[in-house]
Each structure stands twice: as structure tokens, then as C-alpha cells.
């Protein structure tokens, strides 16, 4: 067993850290977000230029095959990047375009759809969630049927992350009783842009369209879709770890500076203990995120990590707000931005209950 980063990984982490501090402090996210004080919500919530820069740095291509301009590297490396991006809430659509979509397309042999994705010129979104599906990927009302030489796709997908800017969607639909995956250009979709709790954007996306035969990515795509969502879960654990570390240190700094009753409030034992609880949860999240990264194919490992993120992550952001007092309730304070992001990533890719049920199934049945 070896839990140390190798030299390349350490260099990668350093360079992302530097980049994030210089190019994307949390104030940048604050200015770009979809709702908040003095915010119009008219922009797209991120910068295409910065995203392309991430492409130049090779981060977008890290987990993609060389045949599409990727580096063929490991997903673990990408998780290291995501953890750092979480520390300042970097909003560029890596999760949606690379982790969820491009990796799935590549895995299904859809290289033809990946031109410009690793450079950041083209954005993909994964359209899988539906009104009555919750977290079961096969519980679909979307349908596809053979039509002429191609297919007719009818689907209503909800909360497609970054769906407001995606150039194309990977869409799940029932075809001959199986979960099939299609790639559909945005011009063939109806996109309803919407704001999310964390100040980002998503979209409800509906499809009623004739597709050429080569738009079918996988006739039996449930396993690939499941892996996409597993990666998503692991990815938000990494990002969430960045969130937890950051609010923990913000809170510690605040307690060391704020005075009431003539002393630093950090001198109150009740608050010290609370901070310790936050610290312990963060360290456990570090352990379970590593577990998920190293055992991505093991559903139990991913669930353990997601459950730790759910319980520990929530405690950390809630207590961070609490210990900031009134300031923590203002939109002006950064702690609230992290608080909101944590709640969004908890609801994605299986909530606590979904993952608990899965662990129970794996361990009991």
C-alpha cells in the first residue's frame, strides 16, 4: 500500500494551487455566479477563455485517450485537480464536460464526437436525470425507436449540469428495453436555462428529434452510464474535500480574530470542540476520497466516500456558518458560497440515502 503522491502528482497539485490562487480566487466565482448581490445572472457563469487555458495546461485531457488529444492519464490525477478547484469554487465545467460526458463518450468508442473537447473548445453535457427517476439510472421515461435509417428520440431531462452552454448532450433513453446512449447536438434540443442553489447554472433539456444512425453511442449503455455517475460521485467527493478544508480554515481564522466578552471567541472551549469536530470530519473525508479514487470500480468504496461527504461535509459547512454568527448569514461572506456548493454536490450522483441503501444491499443481501 502506498498513499503518497508521486513527484508528478505533487507537481500537478502545486501548479493547480498556484493557478487557482492567481487566476481564480473565490472572488472570481462570486462575480460570475447566477444570483447574489449585484449579480445579473446574464453571463454563463464561467469563462471560456479560462476553460481553454485549462485545456492548454492539459487538465481537461488528463483522463482522455491520446487519440482525442488527451494525455491518457489517470482519473486519480483529475481528482487531485478537482480538489484544488474546490478550494476556490472554480466554476469551469470540467465535471460536466470531461468527467461525466467526454470520458463516457471515449469509453463507448465515440471519439468522433470529441473534437475540441480536450482543448476546451467544445462542451458536452450529460442528460440523464428525469422527473420520476431520482437516482436509478434505468428508471427512464425517455424513449428511442428505430425510424428510417436512424432513430426518433423523445426525452425530458432535468438539471443537466452546465446544460445552458453544452454544445452537445449525451442522452440516455430506453431503446428495445435497454438503456441506450445517444449524442445529440444542442441545436436539436430545447434548452431551458436555470439557476442552481450554488450560484451556477443547469438546464432542463428536452428532445423530440430524428437522429442519424451514427448518433447512437451505445445500444446497451447502462454500465457506461453507471460508471459516469460513479466518477461524478468520486469527483464531487474530491471537490467537496477542497470545500471542507477551505471553510475549516476560514472558520479557524475567524475564531482567532473575532472578539466578544473581551476575548477571542476561539478561546471558548465549546467552539474549540466544534472546530475539532469539523477537522475530524474533513480528515475522514480525505481518507474516504482517497478510497474512492483508488477503488473507483468498487461501488462500496464510492458509497462510503459519498456518505462521508454527506454527513461530514454538511456538518462542516453548517457549523462554519454557525461559528461566523450573523456575518455567516450574509451573501457578502464567502462561507455561504461554499455552504451552498456543498449542498448541491450532496444531491448529485446519489444522496446519502441512495448510498446507504447500496452499502446495505452489498453488505446484507
Amino acid at each position, binding site marked *: 500500500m502506498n498513499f503518497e503522491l508521486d513527484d508528478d502528482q505533487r507537481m500537478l497539485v502545486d501548479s493547480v494551487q498556484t493557478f487557482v490562487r492567481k487566476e481564480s480566487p473565490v472572488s472570481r466565482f462570486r462575480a460570475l455566479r447566477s444570483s447574489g448581490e449585484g449579480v445579473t445572472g446574464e453571463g454563463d457563469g464561467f469563462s471560456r477563455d479560462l476553460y481553454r487555458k485549462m485545456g492548454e495546461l492539459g487538465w481537461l485531457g488528463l483522463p482522455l485517450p491520446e487519440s482525442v488529444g488527451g494525455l491518457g492519464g489517470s482519473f486519480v490525477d483529475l481528482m487531485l485537480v478537482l480538489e484544488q478547484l474546490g478550494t476556490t469554487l472554480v466554476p469551469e465545467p470540467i465535471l460536466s464536460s470531461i468527467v461525466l460526458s467526454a470520458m463516457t463518450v471515449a469509453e463507448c468508442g465515440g471519439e468522433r464526437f470529441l473534437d475540441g473537447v480536450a482543448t476546451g473548445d467544445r462542451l458536452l453535457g450529460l442528460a440523464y436525470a428525469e422527473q420520476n427517476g431520482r437516482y436509478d439510472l434505468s*428508471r427512464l421515461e425517455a424513449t428511442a425507436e428505430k425510424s428510417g435509417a436512424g432513430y426518433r428520440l423523445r426525452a425530458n431531462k432535468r438539471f443537466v449540469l452546465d446544460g445552458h452552454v453544452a454544445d452537445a448532450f449525451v442522452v440516455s433513453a430506453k431503446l428495445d428495453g435497454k438503456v441506450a446512449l445517444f449524442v445529440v447536438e444542442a441545436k436539436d434540443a430545447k434548452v431551458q436555462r436555470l439557476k442552481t442553489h450554488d450560484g451556477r447554472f443547469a438546464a432542463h433539456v428536452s428532445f423530440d428529434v430524428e437522429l442519424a444512425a451514427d448518433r447512437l453511442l451505445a445500444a446497451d449503455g447502462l454500465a457506461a452510464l453507471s460508471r459516469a455517475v460513479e466518477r461524478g460521485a468520486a469527483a464531487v467527493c474530491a471537490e467537496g474535500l477542497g470545500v471542507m478544508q477551505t471553510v475549516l480554515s476560514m472558520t479557524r481564522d475567524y475564531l482567532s480574530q473575532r472578539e466578544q466578552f473581551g476575548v477571542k471567541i476561539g478561546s471558548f472551549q465549546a467552539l474549540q470542540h466544534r472546530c475539532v469536530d469539523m477537522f475530524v470530519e474533513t480528515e475522514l473525508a480525505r481518507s474516504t476520497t482517497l478510497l474512492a479514487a483508488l477503488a473507483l470500480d468498487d461501488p462500496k468504496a464510492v458509497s462510503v466516500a459519498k456518505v462521508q461527504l454527506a454527513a461530514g461535509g454538511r456538518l462542516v459547512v453548517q457549523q462554519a456558518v454557525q461559528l461566523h454568527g*450573523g456575518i455567516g448569514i450574509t451573501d457578502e461572506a464567502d462561507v455561504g458560497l461554499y455552504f451552498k456548493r456543498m449542498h448541491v454536490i450532496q444531491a448529485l450522483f446519489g444522496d446519502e440515502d441512495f448510498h446507504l441503501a447500496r452499502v446495505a444491499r452489498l453488505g446484507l443481501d
Partner: protein
Amino acid sequence: MDLSFSPEERAFREEVRAWIKTAMPPHLAAKAAVDGHFEMPEVMEWHKVLAQKGWVAPHWPVEWGGPGLDVARRFILTEELELAGAPQLSPFGLTMAGPLLMQFGNEAQKQRYLPKILSGEEVWCQGYSEPNAGSDLASLRLAARADGDFFVLDGQKTWTTYAQYAGWIFVLARTDPAAKKQSGISFFVVDMTSPGIRVRPTLTIGGTHAFCDTFFENVRVPKENLVGPLNGGWTLAKALLGHERTLVAAVGHSTRTLLRCKRIARETIGDDGRPLSQDPVWRAKIARMECRLEALRMQNYRAIAGAKQGHAPGPESSILKLRGSEVLQGMFELALDLMGHDGLSWMNEPGVVPAHEDWVAPTYDYVRAATIYAGSNEIQKNIIAKLILGLS
């Protein structure tokens, strides 16, 4: 001891229920039906409807316009208003300034202020906290300097809820800078239209401008606006915190939110294809919150029934504040969790999520404040440890 309601009391319940149906203006009823967000002007509109009926201040003595209902009928009235999802009234006049003026004000002050609090003609806000005086309220610095027939106020209050709508503010100010912390403080009522007052609304994490910074620059306040003795304001401050704590038991808000959780559970399909309301895990979660709420409700009944009308309850009220705020937060947490992906939606146009889910996420965020305001939960625990358990 008796928990049951008499036939007359049950008839009163029917009367209240029927009245709400006819009295609530349709635009408020439409929001109530989906637990929408009531803006302050809408809250005051409802205040006036209730005032005309004579039911706006069930806890006020008849002498000052209270309806003279016994404890059981007060419970019934409050409960029916909650169940109907009626707007929650602003507490700053009815529950704070009003009872304080009754207890500590002189006759002229009572005559001047109480009727307009009751009618809703004058809206109030609370000016206690300052940037450097939160939990440590006694370190407040807003200065009130005597000058002829006036006091001149200089300084800043913060987190003043809905100051932007208020015609009046009650403040704690320092009248004797030389005295020890608690002893140099006085209680004033101040006209918000006085020259020198400036209000800056602040956006909260809940997406509404629920509180403000309130600045005072050479604000001249007539001497008759001093309530209670000069330098005796701390007594009033403490009395008020008692009233405030009972209020934040928030039983009504939690009850209503539990109903909302149940509705979401019935209308959200789970991974097994059935509504979440039929899933044993979610059922257990909802049931647990219901038990916590019912325990709190009974605790609250005991406290209210025990306290004399118009008087503040003792340190036990800290229990209500502690548990009540946690239950309220827990209810919204449950609602948000039940919503699954719908919980991602933030203040979108109608239809993105069902209307009764629209305000869950913003309110979930905002009610994180419930463990901070009205004396943070850490402070309540300090109070219980010291004053009830005798630990120090």
C-alpha cells in the same frame, strides 16, 4: 390537568377555520397554499386583516386590545393560522416592543404606541446588535448624549431585521460611557424618519434582503422617548430576550414545514417507483421529525400556559429556543433532502420545480440563522448551564 378540548372550544376552532377561508385575500391564499415567500408589505396586509377581527395579538391583555381568549383558545387560534399557512406576523411590535411598553412604559407612551402596533399602522424593528456587540450585547456602543430636551444618538446597529420597512425602532444605547458595561445602557424608541438615520439593506444567503445596517448620525430623539429608567435599559433588554426566545420555538413554522415535507414525500417518486412517503427509510425520518416537533409543542404549551399574560418566561425558555431552532432547521433539511435533484433549483421562474418546492432551498439557507439570532444556541447553552444547572 387536561389536554382535551370542550365542545365550545371545538366550535371555536371551526369558527376560526371558516373565518380564515373568507378573510384571507386571494393573492395571499394562493401563496399560502404553496408555502410561498411573503414580502413584508403582504405580512402587514394580513396583520391588518387580523387586527380588524381583533385576533392579531392573542397574547395581549384586553385592556390594550387583546381578544381576551383563554389559553386553550389562544392555542387553537395560533394553530389554525399555522395550518392555513398564513403569513407569520412581524414580532418586533406585537411580541417585543408592545409587551415591553406595557411592562415598562409610562401611560403616555402606552397610549401613544400600543394602539398603532396593534392596528399595524406602525411597523417596528429591533436595534440591539452592533458590529462589535453580538453575543456580548452589553458591549454595545451606540451613544446617546443628553442635550436639552433631547438625546443625540451616534453609532451603528447591525442585522436589523426589516428596518427598511419600519417606522419605528427600539434601541439600546449607551447613556453613561463611564459606567460598567450593563449599567450605562438605556432603552429608547426612535422614529425611523428622524434626520440622520440611514438604512442599508443586506442580502442574506436566503436570497432576500431580510436585515439591514442601521446608521445613526446626530439623531435627535425627544427625552420622552426614553422607556424605563435612565441607565436602566439592561432590565428591559433581559425581559425582552425572554419574549424573543419563546417566539423562536417556531412551532408554527415547523408544523407547516412538516406538512410540506409530507406533501413532497407523497409527490416525489423514489428509486423503487413508489412515492417516498411509502419508503420505510423516509417514513422513519419524517416520523422522527414529527416526534421531535410534538415534544417541542408540548414543551411550548407548558411554557406559555405557565407564563402570565404579557410577562416574559424565565430561563427555561432557553430550552425552547435551542430545540425549536434545531427542529426548524431539521424540517427544512428534510424537505431539501426529500426533493433530491429538485433541491438544486434556486429562484427560477415558476414551473422549474413544483410551486411548493420553490422556496425550500432559500429558506433552508436562511433558517441557519435560527441558531444564531435571538441569542445564539451556544449562548443559550451557557445560560442553561449557569442559571438552571448551576454550573460555573
